[in-house]
């Protein structure tokens, strides 16, 4: 695991910044909860909003925004938390092969006694490990900071862990896409572009197509639907949110891996 260890070491510093950002995000979000908690009028306002807008802000029928699961879902799990981890994952996935080939550092590495197969596999595993670290930090911070502000009251541990696993899943899938495109093309740009387009497109399909729309079945195809379909904090873990991204990631990464082994380096 020499190649993977080196990648983790190379990203040590930047990962610390991301960890710091996540800690800040979690701390800030949970600290605001006490000021929202008592505002029943808040739920009233939301109730009057159009349906599409409600999905957009992460509101779910029957889970008031002033309750801990409603609040955490809207403020973190349906918005910034997956976004931050996903952006990090796309960056790391695109960098792993595509970025290093762009920078010209991949070829000298491959002049050493390592196969392309090994370099790609180890670097992908390193990206997965980085995502795990980030999500673990996020989960730990939520548990540690959340309790004193009462934001975990009535949230089952399984629901919380399920939601965090969902964050990992959606980030992993997009990181895998970025990795695969980077590995297949040897470029960072297309890797970031394709993964971002899929993330943004999926999010728009999930949040803007209302249930009555003729295209609504398309929603089931987006990772965001798997992830957001249910408020896991309130209703417990959704298997689709955790399993489907892993299932889809496997062929995506394999395709990138095979393409990388077969093609010319740039």
């Amino acid at each position, binding site marked *: 695991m*020499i*190649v993977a260890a*080196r990648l983790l070491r*190379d990203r040590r510093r930047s990962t610390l910044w991301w960890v710091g950002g996540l800690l800040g995000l979690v701390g800030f979000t949970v600290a605001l909860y006490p000021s929202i908690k008592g505002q029943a009028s808040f739920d009233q306002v939301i109730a009057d909003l159009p349906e599409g807008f409600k999905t957009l802000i992460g509101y779910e029928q029957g889970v008031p925004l002033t309750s801990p699961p409603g609040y955490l879902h809207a403020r973190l799990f349906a918005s910034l938390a997956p976004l931050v981890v996903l952006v990090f994952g796309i960056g790391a996935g695109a960098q792993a092969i595509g970025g290093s080939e762009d*920078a*010209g*550092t991949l*070829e*000298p*590495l*491959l*002049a*050493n*006694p*390592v*196969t392309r197969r090994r370099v790609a596999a180890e670097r992908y595993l390193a990206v997965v490990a980085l995502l795990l670290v980030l999500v673990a930090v996020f989960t730990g911070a939520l548990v540690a900071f959340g309790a004193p502000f009462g934001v975990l009251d009535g949230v089952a541990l399984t629901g919380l862990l399920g939601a965090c696993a969902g964050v990992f899943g959606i980030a992993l899938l997009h990181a895998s896409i970025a990795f695969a495109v980077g590995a297949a093309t040897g470029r960072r740009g297309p890797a970031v572009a394709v993964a971002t387009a899929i993330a943004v497109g999926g999010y728009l399909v999930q949040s803007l197509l209302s249930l009555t729309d003729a295209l609504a079945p398309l929603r089931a195809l987006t990772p965001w639907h798997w992830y957001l379909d249910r408020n896991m904090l309130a209703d417990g873990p959704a298997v689709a949110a955790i399993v489907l991204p892993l299932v889809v990631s496997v062929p995506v990464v394999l395709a990138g891996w095979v393409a990388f082994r*077969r093609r*010319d*380096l740039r």
Partner: protein
Amino acid sequence: MPSERVIRTQGLTKHFGSVRALEDLDLAVEQGEVFGYLGPNGAGKTTTIRLLLDFIRPTRGRAEVLGGSGADPRVRARVGYLPAELSIDPRYTTSDLLDFYGRLRGGHDPGWVAELLDRFDLDPGRPVGELSTGNRRKVGIVQAVAHRPELLLLDEPSSGLDPLLQHQFQLLVRELVADGATVFLSSHVLPEVEVLARRVAILRAGRLVTVAGVDELRRQARQRIDLHLAGPADPAAFLGVPGVVEVRAGDGTLQLVVEGSADQVVKAAARLEVLRVVTHDTNLEDVFLRYYQGEPA
């Protein structure tokens, strides 16, 4: 023991789309020799090296390195590669890089690495991004030889090195060769190759033009000699002198292009009052010229 072929290519061909980067290359490099690989920029030299290392895959033909394939890690463990432009993560220090590569190669000899750093006067603790071009070049050389490879693939090795370092580098290469290493030395300038190599291949537009001994090439090489004269510059004085292929007169000077030995030219010049002689380095382009224009002698 018959000398082993360290590099052998058969009909090695690489096209990039419509660009024919390399066409039907047949090459054999023997164990223990320094083999020069000459050609102008874009002739296909780097393409050849990248094919040998399996960075790119041949359109046709095959390449054998150390009896195996460049794709095989066991083969690459015995190869040292100095790319024309070595890209290193600018945050790495020299020791980061050597440490990383060393572990991939199953360990460097620390005494040898220390000696190399000392010989090339490198501070292993400085980030590569802060180093000058020349120093980065040195890092490239050190990483290429740190595992005492049996085969060195050098792509334009002395570009960016000052004369003192070029000398250091040549000493190092000679040492490694004395220890049995084989060197494949690619360059677009003859002087870089002729001090080290005994055999040279010349590549032109993706095709192998010739493989010849350096001495033979040097004999064939054309040189330009400018004679600044006290009297009138009369080209007739050199017409018909053996070796002279071209004479041009202008403003008290005669510009001669000489092929092979300059002996007869010097003798012919002795009859004139020569103020100054300017010679131009044997230019590889001129050597090529011979091969471009038609029949090599």
